[in-house]
């Protein structure tokens, strides 16, 4: 009945409009504005000296060792934390799946790292590794400031990230695990498959969609890391990440032109990563969208 569907469509758009408008206004518009700003030399400390310079800012950034160092750092942290999270998350998921006692306690406990403010977590780990107030040095019989040196600082940063985000990964993987029908595994057992074989040939393939989605979002999240690095090192010892570079340029040094160029570059990197994941791993996003 045409009247009914037309009215239905109008109602639907009416209901969705506020959310859509908010999403457009607060992301699309500022992003375009950033693009615009990046074409100017614009330092808020000398606002009158603003002038159009075309792609000069991009040139500056792309020829700056600071940017490339930050990019390398970010990739290092991303790869290290996501891969370790996946491994650890799987272990936790298996524990929660197979244990008969205290499953609820474990799940509740795991929600604590998820719920804790990232800044608090970062501070907790920072203090733990602090040579004066921390306990790690005493425990391991070491001396030295972990956060004062690049290599060890990365260790602390990555450990903090893993600690905080593994629970989310574990919960997702647990949900994926419960989707694997017990009957399939029992049948495989009767057919003679050992525990490892069952895991790699049945469980993992069936969990593939869940894993892929979890990896996609965790990778993007890890790439955007800011809180932990800021709180623990402020980017010192060459541990800065791309987000930190952007923040420093924009907010600390008030260089809107250059900072916006960095922002746009970060956006492009994220776009690239997402595209790689979607294309490369064939994530079936349309299935997610249509249900």
């Amino acid at each position: 009945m045409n009247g009914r569907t037309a009215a239905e469509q109008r109602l639907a758009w009416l209901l969705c409009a506020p959310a859509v408008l908010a999403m457009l206004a607060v992301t699309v518009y500022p992003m375009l504005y950033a693009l615009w700003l990046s074409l100017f030399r614009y330092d808020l400390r000398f606002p009158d000296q603003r002038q159009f310079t075309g792609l000069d800012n991009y040139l500056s950034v792309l020829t700056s060792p600071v940017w490339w160092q930050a990019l390398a750092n970010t990739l290092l942290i991303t790869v290290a934390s996501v891969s370790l999270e996946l491994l650890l998350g799987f272990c936790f998921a298996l524990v929660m799946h197979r244990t008969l006692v205290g499953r609820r306690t474990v799940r509740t406990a795991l929600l604590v790292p998820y719920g804790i403010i990232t800044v608090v977590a970062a501070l907790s780990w920072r203090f733990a590794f602090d040579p004066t107030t921390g306990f790690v040095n005493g425990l391991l019989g070491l001396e030295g400031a972990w956060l004062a040196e690049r290599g060890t600082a990365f260790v602390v940063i990555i450990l903090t990230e893993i600690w905080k985000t593994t629970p989310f990964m574990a919960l997702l993987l647990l949900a994926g695990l419960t989707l694997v029908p017990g009957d399939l595994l029992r049948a495989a057992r009767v057919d003679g498959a050992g525990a490892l074989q069952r895991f790699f040939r049945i469980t993992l393939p069936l969990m593939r969609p869940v894993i892929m989605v979890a990896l996609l979002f965790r990778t993007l999240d890890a790439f955007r890391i800011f809180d932990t690095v800021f709180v623990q090192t402020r980017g010192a010892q060459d541990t800065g990440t791309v987000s930190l570079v952007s923040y420093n340029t924009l907010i600390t040094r008030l260089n809107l032109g250059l900072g916006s160029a960095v922002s746009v570059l970060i956006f492009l990197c994220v776009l690239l990563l997402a595209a790689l994941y979607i294309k490369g791993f064939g994530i079936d996003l349309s299935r997610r969208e249509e249900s």
Partner: protein
Amino acid sequence: MPRATGNRPGERLFWAAGSVAVVIYALFPVLWIVSLSLKPGATLGDGRFFPHGASLEHYLAVFADPRFSAALGNSLGIAALATLAAVLLGMFTAYAVVRLEFPGRRLILVAALSIAMFPPVSIIGPLFNMWRTLGLYDTWAGLILPYMTFMLPLAIWTLSAFFREIPWELDKAARVDGATPLQAFVHVIVPLAAPGVFTAAILVFMFAWNDFLFAMALTSTSEARTVPAAIAFFTGSSRFEQPTASIAAASVVVTVPVILVVLLFQRRIVAGLTSGAVKG
């Protein structure tokens, strides 16, 4: 619920030990920070995990600091308002997506997905400049707007997943029973949708409570500075003393409510997280 296929005592012990390990993993940084907050000022440098004699001096210092209570107030207010806005808008959108037929349904879900993948750091520059011009810099509204936007995807997904589970046919039964559409909505639909809405609200609130980047970029004073940003700039009760313990105390104060929420609502939270991501 799937059970462990091995019933041998060795196996059970193994998994039980694993559970204990996971719990320790999850809680030890929290215990550490609690311990730090209780350590008497003089013993801060003793390098031990547990405090040697407990003291509440840092908590007193923290509560005496007006900036901390201001930050708490800001966090609570801003997170609450952003949650309200996100859940409201998310509810309308989720209802439309789940129950109505219209072109662009998919587009909206794609849009939500894109926002979730978007790097917030890319817009702190423009927002900083825009807010300065519009007078929204260092205000509650200045934070509520970006929070609400970045919380919408989570809200829409969680609410869609819950709304899909509601047996909408019940409103037909209510109409036959004699209800007007409004009565059917209030007596039947609202009670069934409430748990989902509540879960979405919890998840979204935790997101806003946690944000650091926007708070750092878009605020500068106690007017709107939220807790994460305030803690990062804590200087402690005296200029000469290490602020470590004060920061620890402040952190504990801010973490206790989170733990309470997690304890009380863990089932809802897990359901919301997994339904949104796995089924959604």
